[in-house]
C-alpha cells in the first residue's frame, strides 16, 4: 500500500487498525459504513490485514490445556454424534473448579460468619472489660478527689472543728470538720450498726429561731463500726448553723427527723 493509495482512499489508512480492533468507536463506524458501501480495495486490504493480525497470536507462548478439558470436549462431541443433535449448551460441563469455587465460597462464608460472631463476641467482651476499666478509673479518680478534698477540709486552718458527743451512754463521740467552701467531714469508730435498713442522717440546725432542721446526707456505718461521711455541698454555711445533729432514720433518709438526735455538736464559727 503506497501513500498515493491512502491519499486516494483515506479509509485504507485505517484498515490495519480496524483489523486489529484498535479503532475508536467513531472511526470504526465510518470504516464499517465504507466497507458496507462495497469498497473492493478496502475489502482486499482488510483480508490481508486480518491475516497479519491473526498471526500476532504467535506472540503468546503455547500452553497445554488439561486432559480434563479434552475429555469433556470429546465426550460432548461423541454424545452429540451419537444422537445426531448439536451439543446442547447444557452439555457444557460445569468445571470442577467452579464446584470447588462454590464450595470454597460457602466454606468461606461460613467461616466469615463464625469469624464475625467470634469477633463480635470478642469485641463485646473487650468493650465490657474496657467499660469496667473506665468505671474503675472514674471511681478511683472520684475517690482520689474525695480524699484530697477531705485532706484539705481536715488540714485547712479555716475549717471549723466540731465535737459531736453521743446523747446515749456507751456510744463513741464523732468528730466533724466543716470547711465553708469544701464541705463537712464526719468520722467515728465503734458505732453500733442500725437494725434493718435504717441509716444515720445528718441534720443542720439553723441559728434562725423556729427554723426546721435542714436534712443532709445519710449513711450506714461499716459492719466493723467505722463511720465516715463526706458532705461536699452542705445545705448551709457554718455561720448560719447552730448545731450538727445525727439521727437514725429509715432507709433513704427523711425530710424531717423522725427520732431524737443521737449525736449533736455545736458549730462555733471562727
Amino acid at each position, binding site marked *: 500500500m503506497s501513500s498515493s493509495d491512502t491519499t486516494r482512499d483515506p479509509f485504507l489508512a485505517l484498515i490495519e487498525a480496524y483489523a486489529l480492533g484498535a479503532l475508536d468507536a467513531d472511526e470504526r463506524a465510518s470504516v464499517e459504513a465504507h466497507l458496507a458501501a462495497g469498497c473492493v480495495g478496502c475489502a482486499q486490504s482488510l*483480508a490481508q490485514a486480518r491475516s497479519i493480525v491473526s498471526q500476532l497470536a504467535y506472540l503468546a507462548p503455547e*500452553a497445554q490445556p488439561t486432559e480434563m478439558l479434552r475429555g469433556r470436549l470429546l465426550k460432548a462431541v461423541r454424545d452429540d454424534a451419537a444422537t445426531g443433535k448439536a451439543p446442547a449448551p447444557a452439555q457444557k460441563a460445569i468445571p470442577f473448579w467452579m464446584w470447588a469455587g462454590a464450595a470454597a465460597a460457602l466454606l468461606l462464608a461460613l467461616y466469615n460468619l463464625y469469624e464475625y460472631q467470634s469477633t463480635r463476641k470478642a469485641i463485646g467482651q473487650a468493650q465490657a472489660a474496657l467499660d469496667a476499666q473506665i468505671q474503675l478509673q472514674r471511681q478511683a479518680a472520684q475517690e482520689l478527689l474525695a480524699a484530697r478534698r477531705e485532706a484539705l477540709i481536715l488540714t485547712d486552718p479555716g475549717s471549723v472543728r466540731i465535737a459531736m458527743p453521743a446523747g446515749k451512754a456507751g456510744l463513741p463521740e464523732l468528730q466533724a470538720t466543716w470547711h465553708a467552701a469544701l464541705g463537712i467531714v464526719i468520722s467515728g469508730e465503734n458505732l453500733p450498726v442500725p437494725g434493718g435498713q435504717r441509716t444515720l442522717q445528718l441534720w443542720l440546725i439553723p441559728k434562725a429561731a423556729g427554723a426546721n432542721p435542714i436534712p443532709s446526707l445519710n449513711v450506714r456505718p461499716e459492719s466493723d463500726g467505722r463511720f465516715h461521711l463526706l458532705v461536699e455541698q452542705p445545705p448551709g454555711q457554718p455561720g448560719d448553723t447552730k448545731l450538727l445533729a445525727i439521727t437514725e432514720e429509715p432507709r433513704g433518709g427523711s425530710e424531717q427527723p423522725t427520732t431524737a438526735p443521737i449525736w449533736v455538736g455545736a458549730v462555733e464559727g471562727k
Partner: protein
Amino acid sequence: MSPDAALIERLRQRDVCAFEELYDRHSRIVYGLVLRILQQASTAEEVVQDIFLQLWRNARHYDGARGPFLPWLLTLARNRALDQLRLKSERQRRREAQSEQLPAAAGARPDFEGNLDDQRRAARVRELMSALKPQQKSAIELAYFEGLSHSEIATRLGEPLGTVKSWIRNGLLKLKEGLEATA
C-alpha cells in the same frame, strides 16, 4: 488441500476423529492465546471449550476459499477471549458487533500455512515484532491482547494519540512486509 481443510471437510460430516485431530493440532496455540489474554487458567479453559464446541456445531460457517483455517480459528479465539475479558472488566463494548458472529476468513492467502509450519511462522512473527521499537510493540500488543483502542493505548502509554496510531499502523505494515518476504 491443506491438512486443516481436509479435517474441516470431515468435520462437516460430523466425524468425531476429525474433531479430535483438529483439537490436538491447535488446542495448544488456541489455549496459549486465550490464556495470554485472560491470564487465568480456569477461565481460559472454559473459553477454549466454548470455541471448540462452536467449531463442532458451526463448521459449515468456515469458508476455506476465503482463507486458511488456523488464522480464522485464532481470530475466533481472540474475539471470544476478549469478550470474556470485557465481561470481567466491563471495558467498553467496542468490539461487540464483531465478536457476536464467527469471524470472516482471516486472510486472502490460501497458500500461507502451506509455506511455513507453525513453529517457523511463530518464530518469524516474534522476530519481526522484536525488531520494532519497544513502544511500538507494546502498542500493538495492548491492542491485540487487551483489546484496547487507540485512545486507550495513548492514555495507557502516556503518548499522543497520533503517535500511537502511527506506531500501530507502521508496525503492522512492517510485519506484513516481513511475512510476505518470508513466505
